[in-house]
């Protein structure tokens, strides 16, 4: 029997529904301490004074850590990809969002740990905050980071840009220009299992980290970078996650637990409360997308201008990556020969936003699809026929000059129409994804087409190794 294509049951399904799966919080180690974090009560403030000595003096408290205890406090998740670090593991002199961790305590019980947080002597000086990224560049807007209100490292630019074709000419030639604004919201990841880790300091000097991360090697890299330890001194144990959806790409608890385990030489566990999960952990980013399409009365999209603002929250985290991915896909499942895209990662005093299912492209889908429906409405055309006409075809190139070799815009659109009994005109019903020719290759689309025979990019996935 062939396994591929078979409806085999999930290997872990029975264990999940009968409660036999062991998640991180089910792991029990004798002598384990509990962790709680002191979090900022303000959206934006300077920390003018902090003294953790009263907390350390409490019976049952085994360790307290602040930014002074972190060997490499400011580490960026994407430093390896050239995204400079801007987020401290524990706040250093300034807090930029409500819920930002400042100090953490390991104690015999969660109650003692909470009491220890109360005992920390801390004073703040509140600062004005920014919540609407549309006002991020306003003169006199509150300063969140000293380098400015937007992430500045897209090469020489402070924004991600795509430029292709003659956009001016497309807008001059257009019969109609349709302009719209789309604002998908921030949402929570909502995993049933909140962020959690258990770190055990082993007798041989290694750390064993039981983690709910979606990416063990990624998180291993993050913890080892903060600690400035080699990879072989840390063992991640994971692979079973009680819901991730992108939020558990953040390495939220592991590094703080590691520091407390090293300092106390005892196993420590930190599990977010449901309130922490909702209020202090990251969200999907809210986006602001403005589209202006130059269209002909026949329903061709001749050109597009796009402005995207990505609300990064207080720190960059994965946002520059998400915006770049958004830029690469900003024309959706369609071919537009002339585009001008500018996208900004704008800081606010919301919680940092992070990866979530569809990262960077969920916003494109809302904006592009709604906009196309409006173009169809304005032109008085069928919205499906508009899609089929402008669909990605073999040999078409995207704004980033990526050549399409196996597009299915046409196939899925036709299949959906057929499934619900939607009537299409004859010239659309039999459409395929083959290279554009004839009426489907008007003058404005001719130049963007890759030469015949060059439409198949040979993917360069590599293998190595042997025995």
């Amino acid at each position: 029997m062939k396994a591929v294509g078979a409806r085999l049951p999930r290997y872990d399904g029975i264990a999940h529904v009968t409660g036999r799966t062991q998640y991180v919080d089910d792991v029990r180690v004798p002598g384990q301490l509990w962790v709680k974090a002191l979090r900022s009560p303000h959206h934006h403030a300077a920390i003018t004074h902090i003294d953790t000595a009263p907390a350390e003096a409490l019976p049952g408290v085994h360790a307290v850590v602040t930014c002074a205890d972190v060997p490499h406090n400011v580490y960026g998740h994407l430093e390896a990809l050239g995204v400079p670090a801007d987020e401290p593991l524990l706040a250093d002199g300034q807090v930029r969002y409500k819920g930002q961790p400042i100090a953490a305590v390991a104690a015999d019980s969660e109650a003692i740990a909470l009491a220890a947080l109360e005992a920390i002597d801390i004073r703040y000086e509140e600062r004005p905050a920014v919540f609407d990224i549309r006002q991020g560049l306003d003169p006199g807007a509150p300063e969140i980071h000293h380098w400015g209100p937007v992430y500045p490292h897209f090469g020489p630019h402070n924004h991600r840009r795509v430029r292709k074709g003659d956009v001016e000419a497309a807008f001059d030639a257009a019969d109609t220009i349709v302009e719209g604004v789309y604002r998908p919201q921030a949402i929570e990841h909502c995993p049933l299992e909140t962020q959690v880790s258990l770190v055990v300091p082993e007798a041989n000097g290694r750390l064993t980290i039981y983690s709910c991360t979606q990416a063990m090697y990624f998180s291993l890299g993050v913890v080892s970078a903060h600690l400035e330890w080699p990879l072989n001194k840390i063992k991640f144990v994971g692979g079973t996650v009680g819901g991730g959806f992108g939020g558990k790409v953040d390495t939220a608890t592991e590094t703080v637990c590691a520091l407390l385990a090293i300092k106390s030489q005892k196993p420590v566990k930190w599990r977010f409360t449901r309130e922490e999960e909702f209020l202090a952990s990251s969200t999907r980013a809210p986006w602001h997308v403005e589209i202006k399409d130059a269209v002909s009365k026949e329903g061709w999209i001749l050109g597009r201008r796009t402005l995207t603002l990505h609300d990064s929250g207080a720190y960059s985290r994965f946002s520059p990556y998400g915006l770049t991915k958004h830029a690469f896909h900003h024309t959706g499942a369609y071919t537009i020969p002339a585009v001008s895209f500018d996208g900004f990662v704008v800081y606010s005093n919301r919680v940092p936003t992070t990866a979530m299912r569809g990262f960077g492209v969920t916003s494109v889908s809302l904006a592009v699809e709604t906009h196309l429906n409006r173009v169809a409405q304005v032109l008085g055309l069928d919205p499906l026929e508009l899609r089929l006409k402008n669909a990605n075809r073999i040999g078409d190139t995207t704004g980033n000059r990526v050549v399409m070799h196996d597009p299915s815009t046409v196939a899925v659109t036709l299949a959906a129409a057929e499934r619900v009994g939607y009537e299409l005109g004859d010239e659309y019903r039999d459409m395929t994804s083959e290279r554009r020719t004839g009426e489907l290759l008007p003058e404005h689309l001719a130049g963007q087409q890759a030469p015949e025979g060059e439409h198949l990019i040979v993917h360069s996935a590599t293998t190595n190794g042997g025995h």
Partner: protein
Amino acid sequence: MARRQGRGFATIEYPTGMNQNGDPSQAWIKLKPDGRVDVFAGTVDIGQGSKTVHTQIVADAIGVPYDWVTMDNSNTDSSAVCTGTFASRGTFIGGNAVRYAAEKAKERILEIASKELEISADDLEVVDGEVLAKGAPDRKISIPDVAGAATYVYGELITGNGTALKPLAELNDDDGSVTAEPHSAISYAACVIDVEVDDETGEVTVLKMTQVYDVGRAINPTLVEGQIEGGAMMGLGLGLLEDAYPRYPSVEHRGEQFGAYLAPSLCDMPEIDNVIIENPSVDGPFGAKAIGEMANNAQPPAIAAAIHDAVGVWVTEMPATPERVLRALQASAEPRLDGKRVIFDEEISVAAVSADGGEGFWGVDA
């Protein structure tokens, strides 16, 4: 005042793997002396079933029964690098890593079998746990016997390892052009949503979702349907219910419990009709493309379109709460016309809300 029905469409695309690539997944395989197959990889199963899918890929790539294969993804000591379970990369990139490792292990199996059968490895094939001479299937040796011979006669361990890695695609920051394809296969989907809108309360009910996904090859159709239906409900939450900042622009009064944060539940679940299309990718495992992330992208615009079809207004700030639908109905604003420009949503634009008319953002080329 009435309940009005409407239908909306959306067609979307989504890439496989990290944008610009450079994200390896590695795996290695060893055979036990009875021919059973142990797979080690660092790919985390976040509930989508990647461990099951990878096991299926290995079983067919070697040619052994599915239940001979055991996968261990439990820790970073025994497994090699996997960049992570995100970017819809599990089946494609993680799956390619275990496939390459399985193909290497299969080569080793054929080498040992070649010695035992005294037939060139090129003339052998693996079928259902046995190595057969091509064209002479009575000349054969079972994989358990091959593994036993490797261990106890030849003193060898049958292993294989593989890495799936597409090199980083360089990006021109001035125009966004790339020198190489910046992702693996692109998946496509279309979504049709039927809604009912109460034009008195603004409440929107999704009645039915019809969804078509091109996944290249459904390694496990049941798990593909799980992704489609789970994603559909997340998309419904995006379109109608969820908001981390429900009083925005105030950022206070956030939901801090499931009882106060409106995630979709089973009672919100409409009839869902799934259609899977298989337009194979050129280089995914057995032609597979990705399905994971894109599954919640098509619903919000299809819902917005269905609301427009039902009651004639556009909601472009998500979610389409009863309040937003009612406000749109009360405003019933026509787009502003300016020459050949047709301008929707002017009041929520950067130009309207920022202090300088949006010049800072719109004027970067000026």
